[in-house]
């Protein structure tokens, strides 16, 4: 059972090595890449089914690497939360790999595209699975080093400059993360997340002073916000997204951004939430480090929605519009997390409490954003491939010229706006629902701010989605559009993703139950500690 936990990681690693070995044979390499992505998606599905969703599944599983018991060895954990995020990664890996094969031609494949693509998923999978704070840093680095290369992939002056800036920023972020990890190790005497949660829950018994955890967790929040591209750490996003190959941009927006959100939820709600430490800052008060998270994350979320929304409305290129839009959408994910952080933990069923509901809403929105933004970035690539441009001023009349491509994009835009029964509707509905529930039971001012930002952000979304549709797809056909011809394989991937957006929306009930299970896993510190069993004598 527990070997299922490590399987997705191994599959991605084996594919990366295999595609590297096949570098001399581009055709074979591309086939291996697609087969590897398919195997990755199937393995993720199998592992999630066997440990979380299946009828006889235990709900979660831990794997002790090398059979070293928990607090000293490295632990990999697949619980509801990791499973939900991994499912997103698996779905997007397959779509992006299929699209890459049609988009990245042998001339610009340069041997390294496909190995790097799978190494990106090695890093992402590791970050989702690891149960060890220092390993989280290591997997982040695996993911980041690959993304530096991808941003610089085309080697133009802009790409190199974007990659250099992205690198310097993230190296500094990683240095801060190491400072936080070192501080937490000095404070709690452990790096294992379950062990840390156990010690923080009962600080007197372990001789731990939990007060520094508030500051150190704030440092971690800054680092994770940088990875997630939340305002005020969003400035690298548009450059880096424009420079990277478009299928990889889809993965950046859909998956690697979520790693930052996942890390916030995992560390704050599973690990730090149990620490009894009074936060006494101006305007902030509470009895756990979450009290600090709530207002700060809410402010970041509101600012992200504003900056992302206005940036997207004012941008003249499809890619730039969607890059700014993804800054705004991460704000939509951050706001329910902030509401959850401000809510009182209620004993009993976590799926009923505001905290559980709000985290589930954030997760559903993350899923929606991954599918839709994956679809839209891939559609941008298809448009650019067909017409040679993604400037809105050079586009027009695509709806008549390439109806299937335009139809798939339209589904994506509608879901972004939030029309039922698409996934975006449920994402928006649940985030607003969480904010309204917050108004009823808990932190009124924070929930009111969240609600206002969510509604304002929705209006901005309608504005730029309409602008993209009217400017690029309706109207008179421009010469660029008239010349262009779409690639059938690319459009097929887009249609599949559009169908997924519809299917997840129509068959939403099981998806929501999965998100609820994930949220329950995120807030249930005790179950997490029991699973990993960090007493030193645990079995693998």
């Amino acid at each position, binding site marked *: 059972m527990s070997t299922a936990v490590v399987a997705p990681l191994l599959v991605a690693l084996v594919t990366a090595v295999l595609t590297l070995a096949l570098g001399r044979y581009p055709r074979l390499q591309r086939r291996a890449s697609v087969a590897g992505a398919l195997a990755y998606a199937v393995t993720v599905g199998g592992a999630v089914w066997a440990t979380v969703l299946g009828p006889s599944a235990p709900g979660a599983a831990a794997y002790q690497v090398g059979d070293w018991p928990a607090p000293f060895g490295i632990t990999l954990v697949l619980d509801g939360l990791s499973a939900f995020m991994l499912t997103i990664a698996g779905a997007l890996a397959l779509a992006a790999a299929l699209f890459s094969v049609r988009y990245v031609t042998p001339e610009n494949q340069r041997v390294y595209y496909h190995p790097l693509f799978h190494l990106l998923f090695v890093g992402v999978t590791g970050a989702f699975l690891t149960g060890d704070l220092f390993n989280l840093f290591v997997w982040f680095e695996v993911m980041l080093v690959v993304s530096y290369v991808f941003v610089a992939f085309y080697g133009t002056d802009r790409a190199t400059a974007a990659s250099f800036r992205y*690198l310097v920023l993230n190296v500094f972020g990683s240095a801060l993360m190491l400072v936080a990890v070192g501080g937490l190790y000095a404070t709690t005497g452990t790096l294992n997340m379950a062990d840390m949660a156990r010690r923080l829950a009962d600080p007197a018994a372990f001789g731990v002073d939990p007060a520094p955890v508030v500051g150190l967790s704030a440092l971690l929040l800054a680092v994770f916000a940088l990875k997630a591209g939340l305002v005020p750490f969003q400035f690298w996003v548009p450059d880096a997204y424009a420079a990277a190959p478009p299928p990889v941009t889809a993965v950046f927006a859909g998956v690697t951004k979520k790693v930052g959100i996942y890390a916030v939820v995992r560390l704050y709600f599973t690990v730090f939430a149990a620490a009894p430490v009074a936060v006494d800052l101006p305007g902030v008060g509470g009895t756990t480090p979450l009290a600090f998270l709530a207002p700060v994350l809410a402010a970041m979320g509101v600012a992200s929605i504003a900056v992302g929304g206005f940036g997207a409305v004012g941008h003249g290129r499809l890619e730039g519009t969607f890059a700014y839009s993804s800054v705004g959408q991460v704000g939509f994910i951050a706001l329910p997390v902030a509401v959850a952080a401000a809510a009182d933990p209620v004993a009993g069923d976590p799926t009923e409490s505001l905290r559980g509901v709000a985290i589930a809403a954030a997760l559903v929105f993350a899923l929606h954003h991954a599918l839709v933004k994956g679809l839209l970035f891939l559609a941008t690539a298809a448009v650019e491939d067909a017409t040679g441009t993604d400037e809105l001023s050079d586009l027009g009349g695509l709806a008549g010229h390439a109806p299937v491509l335009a139809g798939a994009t339209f589904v994506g835009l509608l879901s972004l706006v939030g029309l039922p029964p698409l996934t975006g509707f449920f994402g928006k509905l649940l985030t607003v629902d969480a904010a309204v529930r917050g108004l009823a039971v808990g932190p009124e001012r924070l929930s009111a701010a969240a609600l206002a930002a969510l509604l304002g952000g929705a209006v901005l979304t309608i504005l730029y989605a309409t602008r993209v549709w009217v400017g690029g797809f309706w109207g008179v056909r421009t010469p660029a559009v008239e010349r262009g011809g779409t690639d059938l394989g690319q459009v097929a991937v887009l249609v599949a993703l559009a169908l997924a957006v519809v299917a997840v929306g129509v068959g939403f009930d099981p998806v929501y139950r999965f998100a609820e299970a994930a949220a329950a896993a995120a807030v249930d510190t005790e179950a997490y500690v029991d699973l990993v069993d960090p007493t030193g004598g645990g079995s693998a």
Partner: protein
Amino acid sequence: MSVPLAAAVGGLFAAGTFLLLRRDLVRVVWGVAVVSQGTFVYLLAMGGVDEGTHDLVPVLAGHGESVPEVADPVVQALVLTAIVISFGTTALALVLSYRAYEENESMDVTEWV
């Protein structure tokens, strides 16, 4: 021992930040390297620089009778890993800065696109 270590960490971070904010590309790469070094010293200091005992080094408790007179080996392992990562990233940063010089014909970041 803590005071000199703290001074070293502070000095390295200050120097690194100063270098990171320079206009010259190579200085920025130096800044990245120096900040990383500051983090490593900090990590070592966080492990404590006391004489090793069984309580301090639980990993070694079951492996031989004697505990070597070292600081916490866990942080040393962490620093080793972090150095490897930082080394790779710095190499990549140097390659990128050379490439950026070729593309922009300038080492001054303010003259970039």
